[in-house]
């Protein structure tokens, strides 16, 4: 506990510095509202329901897109590793789309599905599928030959063997890929909503900014930033649990 305090104390120092700087108007308080003001605005948003009203669609879009990406991505990645034809067919697609910035797909999804939920879910699905596929692929490829042979020699069918040996071996790479996808989901959610949305946290940020309610804007910005951070930390905890049987923890 004490160690955590020491570790994060620079943030406390920054927070105090922030409060002092804005309080004494060293920087204009419109550009940098005091933390207390931001806190107050956050509470207002919470009590007025604005926060939930916008958080719900954002998290819904992100969640659905991500889950679809994980589902399809893991299956595809493992299939690519174990069946040559699948690799030949999908491999080039992955290689072509990997270097394309996923945010670049925003205008495309808008053209296809308009300004609503659908385009965002599609965006997050397409974008997040890539790191999951790559993670699953690399993980499945790396399953030790010896383990596979052992399973087969004990009579496991190909499918069974994949389930019993390949998937657990692939878990570290796959889970890391999902971690990347999680971060990417937040990014795509925010970016798509900042540019085109009717409601959602990103949209709320833009609205508050245009309105001049900067303290409230900061409040939502920090909320989203914190959510992204918290999601990653929680996921890491779960990931370590799932990989507890590994002697060396992969970070």
């Amino acid at each position, binding site marked *: 506990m004490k160690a955590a305090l*020491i*570790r*994060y104390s*620079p*943030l406390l120092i*920054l927070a105090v510095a922030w409060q002092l700087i804005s309080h004494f108007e060293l920087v204009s308080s*419109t*550009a940098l509202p005091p933390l207390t003001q931001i806190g107050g605005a956050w509470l207002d948003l919470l009590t007025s329901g604005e926060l939930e009203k916008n958080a719900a669609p954002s998290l819904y879009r992100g969640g659905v897109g991500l889950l679809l990406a994980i589902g399809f991505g893991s299956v595809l990645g493992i299939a690519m590793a174990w069946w040559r034809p699948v690799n030949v067919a999908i*491999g*080039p*697609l*992955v*290689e*072509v789309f*990997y*270097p*394309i*910035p*996923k*945010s*670049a*797909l*925003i*205008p*495309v999804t*808008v*053209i*296809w599905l308009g300004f609503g939920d659908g385009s965002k879910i599609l965006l997050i699905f397409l974008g997040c599928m890539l790191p999951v*596929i*790559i993670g699953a*692929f690399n993980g499945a490829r790396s399953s030790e030959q010896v383990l596979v042979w052992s399973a087969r020699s004990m009579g496991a069918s190909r499918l069974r063997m994949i389930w019993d040996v390949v998937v657990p071996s692939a878990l570290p790479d796959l889970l890391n890929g999902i971690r990347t996808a999680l*971060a990417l989901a*937040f*990014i795509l*959610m*925010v*970016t798509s909503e*900042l*540019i085109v949305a009717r409601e959602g946290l*990103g949209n709320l*940020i*833009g609205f508050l*900014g245009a309105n001049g309610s*900067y303290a409230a*804007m*900061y409040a939502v*910005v920090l909320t*989203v*930033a*914190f959510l*992204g*951070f918290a*999601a*990653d*930390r929680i996921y890491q905890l779960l990931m370590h649990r799932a990989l507890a049987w590994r002697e060396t923890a992969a970070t």
Partner: protein
Amino acid sequence: MSFVVEASERSAAARFIRCAGWVAAHFASIVALLVAWELFARSGAVTMFMLPPFSAVAERIWTDAIGGGLWVNIGFTLYRTFMGFLLACAIGIGLGLAMARTRSARWFFDPIVSIGFPMPKVVFLPVVILWLGVFDVSKIAMVTVEAVFPVITATMLGIQCVGDELLWSARSMGAKDRELLWQILLPAAAPQIMTGVQVALPVALIVAIFTEMAMGGFGVGAVMMQSSRFADSRGVFAGIVEIAIVGYCLVKGLVIVRHHLLRWHQEAIAPSTV
């Protein structure tokens, strides 16, 4: 002992042939992809609006290229990308070095880095705009903020992993502290630092394009978003193809730089895609 030399000569020739074959195969699959795109678009399964045929998109790109607009926009995007990227490298390597070698720097910046990493930093764009206005400065600042993280962590890792023995050898040969830094530490950490740099450049490109989409003001991203709003699907897809090509060139460019800079490393392979 001469077999070592002969083997490397033979394998150089073999490597070239394999490389040429690989390039051909690679382009073959892309060509196949484009053909598939064209056929699928014309097949009627989706409207020409939803998926304009590749030929139409290519034609649009060509018109833009001739008209000059393409180069202006790519120029803007690359300008913002590289400014932010270079800033990120300078700050990132400096910070990473400080954090790896000085306890106080490490203590102060560690929570910022570890919290900042998984955060969707692009959410701070409205704040950056608030501070720095609506023109290039804020775009470049946003790029820097995002791209600096992979450089910091890679530099930290690289410097931490430099074996004591290397430093001790140098010191026993009389090297002073400043010489240690430039002559030993940085070259030894170069492979890892380069990896961080290679991750940072595509990130810089993505963020530059995103800021253009959000803020307008020339650049491939801005044009794409405009096309989207005007339901100009060819323009949108043209933008995607342009980004893909630019991104590919940037990544490949860095791979070549890496191969040259790190030719002493055991055939270091750049971070691979699939």
